[in-house]
C-alpha cells in the first residue's frame, strides 16, 4: 500500500521490490490511539516481512514511539488490529508480543549496570524457565551462546556500568536473540554511537537478517535510513505519509515527507557585518580528551551551527564554554575582551546561557512550579541587596516570559512536568532570556519537541539573533542546522574539520561531510 501527500509520482513508480511471496511477520492495520483526548496515532498501518530491514521514520512527536509500544503490548490500542505470525490481535499484551517473537530494545536498554555481562544476558532466560537456584556454569553457557550469535567479543565478567553505550546495546541485542526473537525493534539505536560503532551495528543487523530475523529500525537520520534499510515507513503527526522501498525515493523527497516542508524556502541568510568585533571569539581552545585547538568567531546577527557525530567533541565544546568543564588552554573573547571561564558561575556572569540536550535532568526542575523554573537563574536581579525577593518584580518577570514565549499553561504554579515537550523547552529558553544573556548555546534545541513548537523556537532564535544575541546551536538534526543556521562548523574527533555557509550545501552533502575522514 502506498500513500503520497500531494505529490505526483512518475508512472513507473513501483511499490514493492521484495517478492510478494515473502512471509509477512507483522501487519498493523488502522491503529488508532489517543491520550487524554490528544490524538497520537490516527489510523496507522505498518507491514514488515520476514528477514526485512525496515525503517520507521518521522520527526519527533510523529507517533513512532507510541506505535512501538502498542506493538510490544505496553500500550493498548484504541482501535485497529495487529497480525503477528498469522495470529490476529485486537488487544495485545506484552507476553503475547514476546511469545510471538517481538523484542524491543529501548533507548535505555533495561540492563542491570551493577551486574556482569553474563548475568544480564542469562537472567531473562533463567526467569522464563522459573529457575530457583543459580548454576554459574549454566549461566556462562547461555551467555557464551548469546554473544556467539553476533560475534561479539566481550569479557563476560565485566560489570555493565563500565561498558560503553555501544557495547551495552550489543548486550541488549544478544539478550533479545536468545529469547528467540523474530522481530527486533530498535528505538533510535544510533543516538549515542560513534561512526565506527554505527557501522558495527549495521554489520550485526545484516547478520541478523541472514538468520531470518526482521529488524524494525526507528530513526530520523537520513544517512542511516538510506544506508541500512530496504523499506521504510514514514509517519507524520500520527498518520502514514509514505511506505515504500528505499530505492524508490531520494533524500530530498525523504526530508519533504518527514517534515512536510521544503526546507529551501526557509534558509536563514542574514547580512552580517564581518568587519565588526565578533560577539564571541574562541582561540585555540583545547581540552584533554575533549577537543583540540578550536578557533572560531561568532558575529552579531549570526546563528552558528556546530555539528558532527557524537564523540566529535561538540558537546564538550559547549560545556567548556559554559564552564562545566573548563578548557585546558586557549582563550575566549567576548566582544573583544578576554574572559576566563572556570565555572558555571563565570559563564553566567559573562552572559552565557546553556540550554542542555537532556532537558529533563539538566534543564528543568520537574517537580517544581513553572514560575520558579523561569526565574531560577535570574534571582539576583529579582531580589534586593540582602537577598529578599521583590515580589512585584518576580510576578512581572514570570508574566512577561509566559506571554513572550507563549508558554501554554492554565496555572503557572503547576509543576513543569505537566507541560508538553515544546512548552518545557520554552521554559528553559525563558530562563536564559530573562537574564538577557549575550550568548545562548543550545544543545539539541528541538529534541522531543513537536513540529509546531519546533518552528516557533526557531523563530524565537532568529529574532534573538537579530537583536544581537549570539546564538550557537549544537545539533545532529541536519535539516535543523541547515535551516536555522547561517554558518556551520563541522567537528570530527575533537577537531574542527569544516566551515561552511549553509546556503552552500545540501543535507546529503552535509551528512557526508560529517562522516568522511
Amino acid at each position, binding site marked *: 500500500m502506498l500513500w503520497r501527500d500531494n505529490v505526483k509520482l512518475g508512472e513507473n513508480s513501483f511499490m514493492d521490490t521484495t517478492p510478494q511471496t515473502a512471509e509477512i511477520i507483522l501487519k498493523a492495520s488502522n491503529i488508532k490511539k489517543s491520550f487524554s483526548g490528544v490524538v497520537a496515532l490516527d489510523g496507522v498501518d505498518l507491514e514488515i516481512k520476514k528477514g526485512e530491514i525496515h525503517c520507521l521514520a518521522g520527526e519527533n512527536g510523529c507517533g513512532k514511539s507510541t506505535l512501538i509500544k502498542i506493538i510490544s503490548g505496553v500500550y493498548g490500542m484504541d482501535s485497529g488490529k495487529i497480525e503477528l505470525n498469522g495470529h490476529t490481535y485486537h488487544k495485545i499484551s506484552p507476553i503475547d508480543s514476546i511469545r510471538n517473537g517481538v523484542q524491543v530494545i529501548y533507548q535505555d536498554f533495561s540492563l542491570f549496570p551493577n551486574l556482569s555481562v553474563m548475568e544480564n544476558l542469562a537472567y531473562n532466560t533463567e526467569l522464563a524457565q522459573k529457575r530457583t537456584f543459580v548454576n554459574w556454569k549454566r549461566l556462562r553457557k547461555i551467555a557464551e551462546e548469546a554473544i556467539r550469535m553476533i560475534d561479539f567479543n566481550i569479557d563476560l565478567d565485566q560489570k555493565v556500568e563500565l561498558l560503553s553505550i555501544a557495547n551495552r546495546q550489543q548486550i541488549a541485542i544478544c539478550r533479545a536473540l536468545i529469547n528467540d526473537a523474530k522481530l527486533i525493534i530498535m528505538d533510535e539505536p544510533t543516538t549515542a554511537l560513534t561512526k565506527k560503532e554505527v557501522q558495527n551495528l549495521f554489520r550485526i543487523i545484516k547478520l541478523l537478517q541472514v538468520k531470518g530475523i526482521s529488524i524494525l529500525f526507528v530513526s530520523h537520520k537520513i544517512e542511516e535510513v538510506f544506508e541500512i534499510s530496504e523499506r521504510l515507513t514514514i509517519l507524520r503527526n500520527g498518520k502514514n505519509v509514505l511506505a515504500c522501498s528505499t530505492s524508490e525515493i531520494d533524500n530530498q523527497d525523504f526530508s519533504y515527507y518527514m517534515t512536510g516542508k521544503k526546507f529551501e524556502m526557509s534558509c536563514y541568510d542574514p547580512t552580517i557585518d564581518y568587519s565588526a568585533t565578533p560577539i564571541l571569539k574562541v582561540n585555540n581552545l583545547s581540552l584533554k580528551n575533549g577537543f583540540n585547538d578550536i578557533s572560531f568567531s561568532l558575529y552579531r546577527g549570526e546563528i552558528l551551527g556546530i555539528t558532527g557525530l557524537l564523540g566529535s567533541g561538540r558537546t564538550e565544546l559547549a560545556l567548556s564554554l559554559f564552564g562545566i568543564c573548563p578548557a585546558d588552554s586557549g582563550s575566549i573573547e567576548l566582544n573583544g575582551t578576554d574572559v576566563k571561564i572556570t565555572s558555571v558561575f563565570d559563564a553566567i556572569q559573562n552572559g552565557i546561557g546553556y540550554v542542555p540536550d537532556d532537558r529533563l535532568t*539538566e534543564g528543568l*526542575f520537574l517537580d*517544581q*512550579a513553572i*514560575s520558579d523554573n523561569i526565574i*531560577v*537563574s535570574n534571582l539576583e536581579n529579582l531580589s534586593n541587596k540582602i537577598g529578599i525577593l521583590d515580589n512585584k518584580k518576580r510576578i512581572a518577570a514570570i508574566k512577561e516570559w509566559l506571554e513572550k514565549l507563549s508558554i501554554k499553561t492554565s496555572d*503557572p504554579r503547576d*509543576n513543569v512536568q505537566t507541560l508538553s515537550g515544546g512548552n518545557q523547552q520554552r521554559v528553559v529558553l525563558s530562563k536564559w532570556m530573562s537574564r538577557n544573556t549575550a550568548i545562548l548555546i543550545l544543545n539539541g534545541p528541538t529534541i522531543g519537541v513537536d513540529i509546531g513548537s519546533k518552528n516557533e523556537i526557531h523563530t524565537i532564535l532568529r529574532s534573538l539573533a537579530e537583536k544581537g544575541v549570539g546564538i550557537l546551536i549544537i545539533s545532529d538534526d541536519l535539516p535543523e542546522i541547515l535551516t536555522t543556521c547561517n554558518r556551520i562548523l563541522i567537528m570530527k574527533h575533537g577537531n574542527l574539520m569544516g566551515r561552511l555557509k549553509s546556503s552552500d550545501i545540501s543535507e546529503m552533502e552535509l551528512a557526508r561531510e560529517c562522516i568522511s575522514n
Partner: protein
Amino acid sequence: MKHDALSSRKLQKNDNTLLNNLVVAAVILITMAILKSSKFFSFTNFQSMAYQLPQYGLMAFAMALAMISGGIDLSIVGMANLSSMIAALMMIKLANLIPNQNLIIYVIIISCLIAILIGLLCGLLNGLLISKIGIPPILATLGSMQLFSGVSIILSKGNAINRLPPLYAKIGNYALFNIVPLPLLIFILLALFVSFMLNKSAYGIKLYMVGSNTKAAKFSGLHVDKIIIQTYCLAGILSSVSGLIMMSRLNSAKSDYGQQYTLQCLLIAILGGVNPQGGHGKISNVMIAILIFQFLSSSINMFPYFSNFYKLLIWGIVLLGVMIWNKYSKSR
C-alpha cells in the same frame, strides 16, 4: 492564567498534607475535649506545652531544612547537646572568674552566643562533608552525631553539668506577662524567620531547587555547595538554640539529653509534609505537625495508666497511616 495567584508561592502538593494534619489535630482536640476537658484545656497544661514544645520544635525545623535540601540531619541532638555543654562549661568558668553578680547576665549572653557559634560550626562541618567530600547525608550526619556526642562526653566525662548560674534557669523559665514563656517566644520568632527565609528570599527558592534536582541547579548557575552548607549551618544554629532551651528547663547539660528527639523530629518533618527526597516542604505544615505531636504527648500524660512510651506507638501508627493515606489520595 491565574497571574494574581502567583503572589503566593503556594506549592500544590501540600494541600493534602495540610488537610490531613488539620484533621488529625482536630480529632485529637475533640477526643481530649470529651475525655479530659478540664485537665487538657487548662491554663497549666497549655503553659506546660508551651514550655516543652520549643525544646524539639526548633530541631524539627532543622531536620526539615536538611530534608528540603535533599538530605537529612541525624546529628541535631548531638549539636544541641554539644552547644549547651560548651555554654554550660563557659558559664561556670566565667562565673567563677567574675564574682560581680551584676555581670552574670553578660556571662550568660556570651556563653549563649558561643553556643550558637558552636552550632554554626557543627553545621558547617556537616555541610562540608556532604557537599565538598560528597558523603551521603545520612552517613555524614550519622558519623558527625557520634563525633559531637563524643566530644560532649569527653568534655563532661559522661556526667551531667549542673552548677549553672541560677539566673540562667530563671531566664529560661521566665514568662512574658506571666503567660507566654520566653522559650515559646524564641521559638515563634525563629519559626517566622525560617519561614520568611524559605518563602521570601532568593535563598529559599534556591534551596527548593537544589533539593529538587542538584544537576539542573548546577546547570542553572546556582552555587549548590554554598546553599547546602548554608542550610546545614542554619540547622546547626537552630539545634544549638534548642539545646540552650533544653538546658534552661533541665538546669543542667548532659551529652545524651533528648536522644529520642532525633527520630521524633524526623517523623514530625515527614508528617509536616516535607518530602525526604527534597524540594518540598513548608514551615507552616511542620508547625502543625509539631502541635499535633505536642497535643498527643500531653494527652497521653494525662492518662496515668498509659506510660509515656505509648506516644511512640501512636506516633508510629499515625506516621504510617498518613503515608498510606497520602499514597492513595495521590493515585486517585
